[in-house]
């Protein structure tokens, strides 16, 4: 009797066609409960997926989405509840069990080995036919077939460290497809993608579903959710707060279901009088990882009280530009100055001292020490400030107060400030970094994709904070691929393409169409 413990989500086709229990569902998770120290991450969650559908999991940062999927994938053991595939109860105690049952997963934080090639990564953990030798040519051939079949372009012989994030994700998907999964989980796959890549991915997902696979999709971007999903389940504080379909709902309604209050989806843009020049970049040239000229002669200025949006498809030199500004990558020629101080090729500590705050794009790798507590990560910048350290000794009273304060103000969801940061959900780590960077009274903020991966409530708050810093006379360089975000926040928008600044436009007159053309490298019409 499969259906009785489920919620009444009666679907017309669920009337049994054949006698005994061929379940209508590919996957059923029932009453999943998972307790972490201080957090009930999943509270009797029921979740199911049919073959051939894309089922979206939606919820705030820390709502328990990744936890639920990690239970499915055998990375966590649930305290209660059961998992069934095709009606058969499973006990999944490790990812290899999950893979053997046809469950694949693309994680929020990728799990590839950077020093191996694409083919080697895909082959990793598989039994080769020529054991104990490897059989990479066969693997490579199959990868090529799969990538052609689904339009997942990637060079099988490239090393993973050479790949852009979008390509890495394709490798993750190929890895799962190679293992012939019938259920594929994608945990925030679009958070790292360019708008074009998102469209391509959505097409791939639809095709995978049409081929009869079940897909679980996690995202914070409501328009993607609306366009890709067959069904949507909303999680809130660990429990299911509702289930719906795109046809029955709207973005506003989804936001309300997630956060529990109405959310402003488009931020206010305060009018601020601009002041003097705070960030000057002049004829900057920077080499990329592969020795190419990733930044090819960029000059720009950002004024106090201004947000300069740098739009562009990722991989066009944004990362190298940001790193060069922050002193993390050598500038081949040209200059960078912050608040009047020349910081070209200065040590990161000097750049910080000159007044730079930096929200890096790859936060897990670049933004936090995952083994440190929340409070320790909050102190990463101000570790030597007289407020928090005296005669070289840290002042724990002040540190504790400051960290708790930031955790409250930025709504970082954590059991307490001593929790190891790696136990936080992805979006909450992002909030932690923003709290740290924005609270250090910067003169220049360099923010790469600041709202990527955070829920809409938090995005609203971050946008407010950026606006507030702007009002305080801070100069902000906002690097983003999200045109909506750039248009909503920035005062001027520059478009970067192949390491060059295509054009700089006043945000009041810019249109998405115009920006889109520039981002694709089509020169200005005028």
């Amino acid at each position, binding site marked *: 009797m499969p259906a009785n413990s489920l919620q009444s989500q009666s679907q017309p086709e669920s009337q049994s066609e054949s006698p005994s229990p061929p379940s209508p569902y590919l996957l059923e998770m029932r009453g999943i409960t998972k307790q972490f120290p201080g957090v009930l991450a999943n509270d009797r969650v029921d979740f199911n997926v049919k073959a051939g559908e894309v089922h979206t999991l939606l919820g705030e940062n820390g709502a328990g989405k990744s936890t639920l999927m990690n239970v499915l994938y055998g990375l966590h053991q649930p305290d209660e509840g059961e998992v069934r595939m095709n009606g058969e109860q499973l006990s999944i105690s490790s990812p290899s069990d999950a893979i053997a049952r046809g469950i694949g997963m693309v994680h929020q934080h990728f799990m590839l080995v950077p020093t191996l090639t694409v083919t080697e990564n895909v082959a990793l953990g598989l039994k080769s036919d020529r054991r104990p030798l490897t059989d990479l040519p066969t693997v490579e051939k199959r990868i090529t077939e799969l990538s052609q079949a689904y339009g997942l372009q990637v060079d099988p012989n490239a090393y993973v460290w050479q790949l852009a994030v979008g390509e890495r994700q394709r490798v993750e998907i190929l890895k799962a497809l190679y293992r012939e999964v019938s259920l594929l989980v994608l945990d925030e796959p679009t958070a790292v993608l360019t708008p074009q890549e998102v469209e391509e991915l959505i097409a791939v997902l639809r095709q995978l579903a049409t081929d009869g696979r079940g897909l679980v999709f996690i995202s914070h971007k409501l328009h993607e959710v609306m366009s890709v999903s067959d069904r949507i389940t909303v999680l809130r504080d660990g429990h299911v707060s509702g289930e719906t379909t795109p046809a029955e709902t709207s973005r506003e309604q989804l936001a309300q279901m997630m956060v529990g209050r109405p959310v402003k989806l488009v931020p206010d843009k305060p009018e601020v009088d601009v002041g003097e020049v705070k960030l000057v970049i002049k004829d900057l040239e920077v080499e990329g990882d592969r020795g190419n000229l990733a930044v090819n002669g960029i000059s720009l200025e950002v004024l106090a009280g201004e947000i300069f949006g740098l739009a562009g498809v990722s991989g066009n030199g944004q990362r190298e530009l940001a790193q060069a500004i922050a002193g993390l990558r050598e500038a081949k020629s040209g200059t960078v100055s912050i608040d009047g101080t020349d910081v070209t090729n200065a040590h990161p500590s000097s750049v910080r001292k000159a007044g730079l705050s930096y929200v890096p794009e790859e936060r897990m790798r670049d933004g936090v020490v995952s083994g440190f507590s929340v409070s320790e990560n909050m102190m990463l910048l101000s570790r030597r400030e007289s407020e928090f350290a005296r005669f070289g000794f840290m002042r724990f009273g002040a540190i504790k107060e400051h960290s708790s304060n930031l955790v409250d103000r930025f709504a970082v969801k954590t059991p307490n400030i001593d929790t190891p940061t*790696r136990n936080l959900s992805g979006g909450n780590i992002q909030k932690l970094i923003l709290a740290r960077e924005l609270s250090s009274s910067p003169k220049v903020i360099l923010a790469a994709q600041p709202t990527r991966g955070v829920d809409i409530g938090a995005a609203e708050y971050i946008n407010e904070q950026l606006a507030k810093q702007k009002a305080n006379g801070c100069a902000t360089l906002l690097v983003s691929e999200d045109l909506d975000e750039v248009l909503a926040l920035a005062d001027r928008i520059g478009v970067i393409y192949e390491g060059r600044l295509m054009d700089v436009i006043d945000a009041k007159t810019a249109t998405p169409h115009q920006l889109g053309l520039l981002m694709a490298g089509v020169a200005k019409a005028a």
Partner: protein
Amino acid sequence: MTEIRQRLLRNAIGPMVPLTAVLLALIIGAFMVLAFGGDPIEGYRAMFSGAFGGWDELSETTLRATPLLLVGVGICIAFRSSVINIGGEGQIIAGALLCTTIVLVLPDLPRPVLLPLALLGGAVGGAFWGWMPGMLKAYAAVNEILSTIMLNIVAGYLMQFLLLGPMKDRQSEELGDIAQTERLSENAKLPTLLEGTQFNLGIVVAVLAAIVGFVLLWRTSLGFEMRAVGGNQIAAQYAGMRVKRNIVLALTFSGMMSGLAGAVLVLSSTAHRLSVESGPSGFTQLAGFNGIVAALFGALHPLWTIPASFLFGGLLVGAFALQRAVQVATPLVVALSGLVVVFVVSSESIVTRAREWAERVSQIAKGGSSSGNEPSTPLGATDPGSPRAPDSASEPESTQTPETSSETIVT
């Protein structure tokens, strides 16, 4: 209430892990003793009383534990900064050499001046021997595991050379080529703490060093930076930390502690001189390697390393009593301490495995009956204050933990 109990339990897990490991090693050791025709019960009784059975035994154990503790504290500092220092042996020797030189040159200084000066010399010598691989790693990308091992060898030969040459004992020249210095000035002798025993100031120095190590790592901005660099170099750099300088500092501090151990070894030796009759390791007692085990035993926490050093020191001392009591071959004793090392070093992963297994069993049990709830105790959680190795166990794909890398080297 339960909150507190869970907390206590969680904190108790830390030290329980290596203790269980020792127990396991001893059980296997018992079978080995049996196989050699000895009585393990009698052997272990002898071992225990040989290590902790009386004042003499206790002071012997303390003497043994002192260099282990000093080296161990240095290891905590290095490993917490993700620098693998295998150079304890060389750093001990470098410290001992500089300390001895100072005492030989200035034998007539009054004790309150000479003694601190000699200890300082040891610290500086060791620090220098740690600074070199630190610089090599930071500025020339030379793997510190290799360079520290190489420098052990360099230090060993340097000591032989000096003790047979410039620092050689002139008085006993007619006895032939004995690599030793003359007897050192009485003013440089570490004072005994308890009349009639061998307890000396060395252990006080070592315990103080452990406290300093703890304060450095967890109470100062510098230690914070070092741990940040150890935890995630890239993030540390992004946050504006000077990664290279921190690496050099970590190895320098680490070497300094070992150098101090070298000074203590010289200044508390019964012959009161630096001598290498049976090779360099005869002088160091292999504390440069065994200190690593003590530190791992103490979960890379300087304060836990104090009891860990005593236990491990006791084990080393007691093993010889065991050998005498049950008349087994000497290699067995070496094998026994080797077993302990292997178990301690791999205990982390054994425990993780056991925990997973237990979870699975309880899962199956639960699946059978009704919801036998009560959320499984969060043993996996590591309290940040509680001493645990950085980033190990709980992360399945953690690339390189100090444990694994030292496993192959400590033999």
